[in-house]
C-alpha cells in the first residue's frame, strides 16, 4: 500500500503531491529523508509517517523534534491519521491522502464551454468594437442639433467605449489572479455583444411605449427583462473566467444583480412622494415610420381626462 502526501500552500491549495510505495516515510530537513523539506523550522529528522501493520491505519510519530507536530492544529506526539488530515511541521503544511477512499465523480463537461468558443475570436471582437463605436457615434449624431463633427466627438465616444471595456478587463485580471486562463477576447466579445443587445432592447422599448402607451405593468416587465439580462451577463462572465459549480455561480450572479438593481429601483420608489412643480410625463416622440398604432379621438381623451380629476382629488387626502 502506498502513502500519498500533498504539499499545501498557506491557503490549503495543493502545490505538489508525493506518492511513496513503502510502509513508512521519514520527513525532515536531512537529505537522507524520504521526503525532504527545505524549511529552517523543520528538524533534520522531524517525523515518521507509517502504516500500522496491525490495523492498517496511518500513524504519525514525532522524532523528538524541536517544534513538534500539529495535526489539524493540535500538538501531538503520536496520532492516528484519517484521510485529509492536515499536518503542520515548522512552517510547512502537508495533507495525508487515503488512496482507498473513492474520489467524487467528474463534473460533466458543459456543452456551453464549446458553444461559446466562437466568442474567442479576435476578428469578432474587433468587428464588435467597431460596431459599438459606430453606434455610439450615430446616437451622438442623432441626439444633437448642432453641426456634427466626427473628429470632435470621437475622443468622448472612445472614452465611453474604454469605460465599457473595464468590465471584461476586470474579469480577465481576476481569472489571471486565480491562475486560470484570462479569456480576454471572449470577455470583450461578450461585453460588446451585451451592449449592442441592450441598446437594441432600448429602441424596442421606446417604440412599444410610444405606440401602446402602457401603464405601470410595463415597468415590471422592463424590470424583469433588465434583471434577466444583467444576471445572464454576469453568469456568462463568471462562466468564462472561473471554474465554479453551477450552484455557486448562480448565487454570485443573482446577488450581484440584486446589488446593482436594488439601489436603482429603491431610489425610484423613494422619490415618488417628493413635491415637484413639474409633472412627470414621457416626452418621447418618434417619426411617422415608427407610428404603428392608431390614435384615439378628442372626445375619448376628454372622457379619460375627466377621471383624472377624480384621481387627483384622492391625492389631496394623503
Amino acid at each position: 500500500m502506498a502513502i500519498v502526501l500533498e504539499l499545501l500552500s498557506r491557503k490549503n491549495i495543493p502545490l505538489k503531491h508525493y506518492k511513496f510505495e513503502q510502509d513508512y516515510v521519514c520527513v525532515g530537513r536531512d537529505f537522507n529523508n524520504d521526503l525532504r523539506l527545505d524549511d529552517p523550522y523543520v528538524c533534520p529528522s522531524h517525523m515518521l509517517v507509517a502504516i500500522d501493520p496491525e490495523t492498517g491505519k496511518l500513524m504519525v510519530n514525532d522524532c523528538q523534534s524541536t517544534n513538534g507536530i500539529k495535526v489539524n492544529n493540535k500538538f501531538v506526539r503520536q496520532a492516528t491519521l484519517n484521510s485529509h488530515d492536515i499536518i503542520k511541521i515548522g512552517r510547512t503544511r502537508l495533507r495525508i491522502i487515503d488512496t482507498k477512499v473513492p474520489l467524487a465523480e467528474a463534473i460533466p463537461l458543459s456543452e456551453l464551454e464549446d458553444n461559446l468558443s466562437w466568442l474567442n475570436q479576435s476578428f469578432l471582437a474587433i468587428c464588435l468594437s467597431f460596431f459599438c463605436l459606430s453606434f455610439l457615434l450615430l446616437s451622438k449624431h442623432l441626439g444633437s442639433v448642432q453641426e456634427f463633427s466626427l473628429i470632435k466627438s470621437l475622443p468622448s465616444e472612445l472614452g465611453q467605449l474604454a469605460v465599457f471595456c473595464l468590465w471584461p478587463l476586470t474579469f480577465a485580471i481576476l481569472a489571471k489572479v486565480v491562475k486560470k486562463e484570462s479569456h480576454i477576447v471572449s470577455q470583450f466579445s461578450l461585453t460588446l455583444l451585451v451592449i449592442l443587445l441592450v441598446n437594441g432592447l432600448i429602441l424596442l422599448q421606446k417604440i412599444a411605449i410610444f405606440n401602446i402607451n402602457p401603464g405601470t405593468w410595463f415597468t415590471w416587465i422592463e424590470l424583469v427583462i433588465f434583471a434577466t439580462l444583467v444576471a445572464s451577463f454576469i453568469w456568462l462572465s463568471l462562466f468564462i473566467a472561473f471554474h465554479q459549480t453551477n450552484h455557486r455561480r448562480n448565487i454570485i450572479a443573482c446577488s450581484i444583480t440584486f446589488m446593482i438593481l436594488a439601489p436603482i429601483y429603491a431610489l425610484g420608489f423613494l422619490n415618488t412622494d417628493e413635491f415637484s412643480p413639474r409633472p412627470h410625463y414621457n416626452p418621447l416622440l418618434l417619426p411617422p415610420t415608427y407610428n404603428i398604432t392608431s390614435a384615439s379621438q378628442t372626445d375619448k381623451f376628454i372622457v379619460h381626462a375627466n377621471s383624472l380629476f377624480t384621481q387627483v382629488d384622492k391625492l389631496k387626502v394623503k
Partner: protein
Amino acid sequence: MFCSLAHSQQIAQNLFGQYRTALYQIKIIELESGNKSSIGSGFQIDISGNIVTNYHVVSKYVYNPDKFRIEYLAHDGSQGQLQLVDVDVVNDLALVRKVDLSEQENAFPIAQTLPLQGSDIYSLGNPHDLGMIVVPGTFNGLKKSSFYQRIHFTGSINPGMSGGPVVNKNGEVMGVNVATAGNQIGFLIPLEKIQALLKSQDAQVLKSEQFKPRIQTQLLANQNKLFSLLNNQTWQTTELGDAIIPSKITDFISCWGGSNTSDKEALYLSVENRCQLDEQIYLHHELRTGGVEVEFEWLDGKSLGEHRFYNFYSQSITGAGAGNNATKTDVTNFICEQDKVTNINVVTNKTVMCLRAYKDFEKLYDVLFVAATLDHSQQGLISHFTLAGVSKESALVFTQKFMDAIAWQ
C-alpha cells in the same frame, strides 16, 4: 406750469391735513416674536371703523390666523387691533374693522365716478415705514385689455404704500394702490371694486375657519366668469408654419412672438407665439393663481433628417412646468394622462394633460397641457397651455376647444 405745480402741491397739503386721521399703517404682528412681520397702508371709509387695505397686506393673517394678528398705527401714534370683515382676493382688497373706536372717527368719502383721463390724482401711503406721504400723479384711465381691471397711474407707488387710497382733488377715494410696474407707472384697483367690497360694510366679522371657503367661492366665481368668456367666443386663428392655430383667443390676453431666424448657425427653424393674461391672483407670497398661458411653437428641421429632428422635437416638449408658483402645502403633485389623439381637423398629436389639485380649495385645479403633432417627418407644431385655479368643467371645455382648434393649412 409752475402755477399748476404749486396748485397741485397746495391740494396735496390740504388733503393730507384733512384726512390724515383716517389714514393708517396696517401691521401684521407675529404672535411668537410680538413684532411686525409686514406692513402696508389702509384707510377708513366710515365712522364705524371699517378700513380698506390690500388683501396681500393681510394675507399672512388669512393663511395663519393663529400665528398672526392685524394692528393699525394711526398718525398720532395710537395703536389698536383690527378684525377681518371681508376679502376680495381677485381684486386684492380686504376690509378690516377697528375693535375699539375712539370718540372722533374720520373717514374718506368714496367718489361716485372715475375722473377724466389726465386729471390729477393723489396716492397716499406709508412707503418703507417712513411715515405717511402723498404722491401726486395723473389718472390715465383703466388699463387696456386686462381681465383683472386696474387703473393706470403715472406716479411712483413704493412698497409699503400698498393698500393706501388714491383720491381725486376733492379728497374722494377712487382707487387703491396695488402694484408698481417700474418707474413712474403704477396700478390701482379701481373704484367699482371698492364699491363692491363696501357691501360688506355692515357684515359680521369673519371667523377664521370662514376665510378659506370665502376665498374658494371668490376664486370659483372668478374662473367661471373668465372661462365663460374664453369658452363661449370663437377664437381668432392665425397661421404658424404649416398650421392654423388659435392666436388671440380674447381681447384681454396679450400675445408675443419670436423666432430664431437671426441665428445663422441654427439647423432648424423655430417660430413661437405666446399669449398670457397679464395678472395673476396673489394668495400668499408663494402661491399665485388665476393665470392663463397659451403657447405655440412651429419647428422645421429643414435638413436634419427625421431621426435627428424627432430627437430634438422630444427634447422640446421635455420639462414643461406650471405657470404659477405654489408649494407642497398648497397643491398636490401633478398627475398626467397621455395618448395619441386625432382631432376633428385630422391633426394627430401626442397629447399630455397634467393636473394638480389645490389642497385648501375644493374644486380648483392647475392644468398643464402639452401636445406635439406627429404628421410630418421633419416639421412639427408644439401646442401648450397652463391654466391656474380652474374648475373641472372649465378646464375640460377649454381643453377640448383648444385641441380641436388646431388644423393644417
